[in-house]
């Protein structure tokens, strides 16, 4: 079976531009602008990054944003808190559908 998610592939990200340079350039400009400090600091933005990386389960993003958090002076305890917050949202997003189930059940129940 072929290997997926090789960590050296992260450095090859730019190769994606080959098939559509214009869209890739626009993506990179948007990406960089999104992570430029504004009302939120760089530290806050990389913490959002690591939380979302876990929620969308992207191994490349987890590697990159874990390192970014450490380089912003945070520890694994900071990262763990952010991941728990993201995971709680994700868990809650599943759980809220129990109301949908209840509604569905109510609709067809005596």
């Amino acid at each position, binding site marked *: 079976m072929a290997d997926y998610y090789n960590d050296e592939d992260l450095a090859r990200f730019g190769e994606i531009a080959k098939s559509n340079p214009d869209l890739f350039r626009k993506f990179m400009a948007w990406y960089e602008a999104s992570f430029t400090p504004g009302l939120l*600091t760089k530290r806050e933005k990389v913490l959002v990054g690591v939380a979302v990386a876990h929620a969308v389960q992207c191994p490349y993003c987890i590697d990159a944003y874990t*390192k970014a958090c*450490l*380089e*912003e*002076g945070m*520890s694994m*305890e900071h990262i763990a808190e952010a991941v728990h917050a993201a995971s709680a949202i994700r868990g809650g997003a599943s759980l809220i559908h129990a109301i949908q189930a209840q509604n569905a059940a109510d609709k067809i129940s005596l």
Partner: protein
Amino acid sequence: MSISTAFHDKLNGACTVPLQAHGLEVLQVNLGYRCNMECRHCHVNAGPDRKEIMSSENIDRVIDIVSGNGISTLDITGGAPELHPEFTRLVREAMTAGCHVIVRCNLTVLLEPGMEHLFEFYADFPVEIVASFPYYREADLDRMRGAGSFAKSIRVMKRLNQMGYGVPGSGRVLNLVYNPGGAFLPASQCSLEAEFKNALEKHDIVFSRLLSLVNMPIGRFRDFLVRTNNYDAYVKRLADAFNPDTLAGVMCRQIVSVAWDGRLFDCDFNQMLDMPIEPPYPGRLEDFDYDMLANRRIIVGNHCFGCTAGQGSSCGGAID
């Protein structure tokens, strides 16, 4: 680009090569590699079993040099410099000669048996204490420096605070040194300092400034990088973060580093890599020539990316 020429190539593009000293304000003296600790990030490979120690003759030479030249600051390091039997003589005589004295202290050494006198000594001779305290959370600090190090450091800092060290307006300086707990670059010194101050306030501890340093891929930290297969990526990270604006402020342009055996180097890192100052410039304490050394050519290598990455890194913290 070959590894051996990478920093030279960056220098070529960034400034006049070779890199030259720009005066000589600080004599940094390494009294030996013996230490009560074995920190995982130590570039010196210092530890309790190291035997290297500066001789009395070389201590005399250091005192003569800081008493009779334009050098304003004596910066004492090691190992744990306080373990040298003539440490207090060196500090006392240098301060009596009007020299500003910095001691690079690991804090825990002050609790070692036989070292109790140092608190009284530091009360009488107010040196600038630059203390290694790489993180404000106990688990992270103890992982780097050994179990129990955090609690001991807190005890010592409380004592130093009681003596005025680190207390605003006291004139007694207690600076802390942060360095990353692994193969990554440090955060901004300014934001880290605020975070450290906030965290240590909960322990009723104050300090003067936080100095943020880059881990050098040398000594025990290099061993870690190699052992964990992080060396190439870390060195590339440093090189990619090269910031030419740091070249004006790198420490080697204003200091000379003296090894325990009296040999002279451009910095403590060159000392560990056995890259001494080369002829025609003086290479030993007994040949010390202020004017020549203040205008010498500096020996560089790829480890110099460590001092020139990002916000830069020097004995005084970030450069930018």
